[in-house]
């Protein structure tokens, strides 16, 4: 009895997120003619592919009980690195892209190591990463750099065709593939379980023998990789890079993850929720574009209000006493099973 109740509890938050998305979508379709089309739907993904990729990495970080403020800067940095190497050094994109991905991952690795080995607060360490990545980007170039290389055009112009007229561009494919991998890693691998464990309660995780250091450093490295990938996708999306782009982006990402039902205290949330969080912010933007009368600053206000509502919902669910106890029980049994299957 308790168990089934707890499972309902567990899914309530994500069900709320999905309902909001569905309601918003239906309302938009009723209000605006032409909203209900494949083009508009695929546009949610095209316009938010970089946000989604970054949000996937951020979900891991938040699930582990940390936070990463450096993502916006890393996007700018990798964009500038990519643009400079491709357009000025005339290197092949197949060499440049791995370099950019490595630079982002390395910064993540560095921050993860400092957080773990010196027991420093993630907020401050990633704030350092924020300054460092932004600074490196600006030192490399202050200009807005266009990219003309066909490799980057290819990912946005070409794609998998559905029907006669609509295609899914490859940047969306990258996002969706990464998402599938992320779902697998978060929910079906030992690494994913470890992330949930240290986010839930780091002390008990340590006692259970979860490798804290490896997991934490891994999470920040993974997020560095995701941010770098988001930076490259952003460069493809805008056909250019600028060291000032992505300002305040980290907060959009965190909002998307929170709207997706992941608790900032760590240990609770779903990768799928993040996907819907990203889609909700996409739908709001599209709604405001379709409406035409509302100015763009309403986007921010609506997102702020949505975050508020979701926090209230989560607060309500997590304050129900039965659930936390029951999830802890199910968690312990899950852990046991994991140990047995080792």
């Amino acid at each position, binding site marked *: 009895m308790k168990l089934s109740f707890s499972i309902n509890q567990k899914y309530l938050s994500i069900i709320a997120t999905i309902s909001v998305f569905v309601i918003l979508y239906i309302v938009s379709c009723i209000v605006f003619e032409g909203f209900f089309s494949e083009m508009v739907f695929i546009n949610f993904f095209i316009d938010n592919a970089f946000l989604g990729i970054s949000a996937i990495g951020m979900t891991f970080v938040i699930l582990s009980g940390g*936070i990463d*403020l450096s993502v916006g800067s890393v996007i700018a940095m990798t964009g500038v690195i990519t643009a400079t190497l491709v357009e000025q050094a005339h290197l092949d994109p197949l060499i440049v892209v791995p370099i950019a991905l490595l630079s982002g991952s390395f910064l993540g690795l560095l921050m993860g190591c*400092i957080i773990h*080995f*010196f*027991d*420093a*607060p993630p*907020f*401050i*360490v990633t*704030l*350092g*990463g*924020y*300054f*460092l990545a*932004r*600074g*490196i980007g*600006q*030192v490399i170039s*202050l200009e807005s750099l266009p990219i003309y290389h066909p490799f980057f055009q290819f990912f946005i112009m070409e794609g998998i065709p559905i029907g006669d007229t609509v295609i899914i561009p490859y940047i969306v494919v990258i996002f969706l593939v990464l998402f599938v991998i992320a779902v697998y890693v978060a929910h079906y691998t030992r690494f994913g379980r470890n992330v949930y464990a240290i986010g839930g309660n780091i002390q008990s995780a340590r006692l259970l023998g979860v490798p804290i250091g490896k997991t934490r450093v891994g999470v920040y490295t993974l997020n560095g990789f995701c941010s770098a990938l988001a930076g490259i996708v952003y460069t493809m999306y805008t056909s250019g890079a600028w*060291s000032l782009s992505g*300002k*305040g982006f980290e*907060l*959009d990402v*965190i*909002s998307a993850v*929170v709207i997706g039902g992941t608790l*900032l*205290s760590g240990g609770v949330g779903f990768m799928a929720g993040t996907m819907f969080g990203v889609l909700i912010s996409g739908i709001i933007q599209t709604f405001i574009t379709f409406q035409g009368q509302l*100015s*763009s*600053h*309403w*986007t*921010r*206000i609506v*997102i*702020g*209000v949505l*975050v*508020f509502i979701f*926090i*209230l919902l989560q*607060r309500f669910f997590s*304050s129900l006493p039965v659930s936390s106890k029951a999830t802890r029980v199910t968690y312990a049994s899950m852990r046991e099973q994991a140990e047995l299957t080792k």
Partner: protein
Amino acid sequence: MAIKDLTRDLTKRIASSHIKWSLIIFFVILLFNFIFTPNFFHIEIKNGRFYGSIIDVFNRAAPVMLAAIGMTLVIATGGIDISVGSVMAISGSIAAVLIAKMDVPFWMVLCLPLVFSALLGAWNGLLVSYIGIQPIIATLILLVAGRGIAQLVTDGQIIVFEHPPFEFIAGGSLFGLHFPIIISFGVFLIILFLFKFTALGLFVESVGGNSEASKYCGINAGRIKLVVYIVSALCAGIAGLIAASNIKAADPNTSGDGLELNAILAVVIGGTSLNGGKYFLVGSVIGALIMQSLTTTILTMGVPVQVTLVVNAIVVLVVCLIQSKNFRDILAGIFKLDFRGLLRRMPLKGGNK
């Protein structure tokens, strides 16, 4: 007797290791400037007010210093307020709209933005203390929505105005000092008095140390939290007035951009732990000064301004490492030094036991 107690208290406070570190960093920067930039300490009097690099540091540090003072109290209660940048933009925007679009008396131009800031602070405080939302998320809501509100107030435009009394806030001077310096130190002294010389400060420390325990001790933890968020928003509101007055315009998009991060950084450099509890208002002021003096140093040295960010990053790293116990242990291990013992023997600690 009282003065003796006070000086002993002061020396003790300086000797408390965290403030000492920030003071040392500040003096190293000043020493560096003393040696490498000849005119850094040169002060001259023009039109009855002081000018010079060092004065400039104090003048330009004012907004971050104000935000950092409020932030220190919030962090002391175990919270964080990342909405200060947006509150700053809102306050400046309201003032500009009042001046440019509406015919209201001057005192209302000053009061309304601050009242509205205080309301926003109360909103943050309510979310944190009475609804029990995590501080970073509670203030994230206002951070995201707040900039939208500021844009709504000015209708997305940059509002330019001409208003000599209001321009005095950033451009005027008193006793030969730029007015922002007077404001920031005035606010600092008021807060210092309220939170260090009355029981309020003790309550804040207690709530930050253990919110539950304080409740059982009869401290209204919720109300204390409410107060610190209001103070933080008020400080940000004042910073917004200074910024708007400085450029004679309200820019809802960029005003206060990144202020929250700089303020938090100043607080952390000043030795206050993000975990709450003990807090160092003097340290936060020095933290803000350190960051501004670094920027000014880089500019006067002729280094491109974009390097500032890299230097900031290095400062953050150094601060993280110094405050990390693990790192200090490793350092002590390397030099085979009795680190604590060395600190204890340092002459800074004047108190005789």
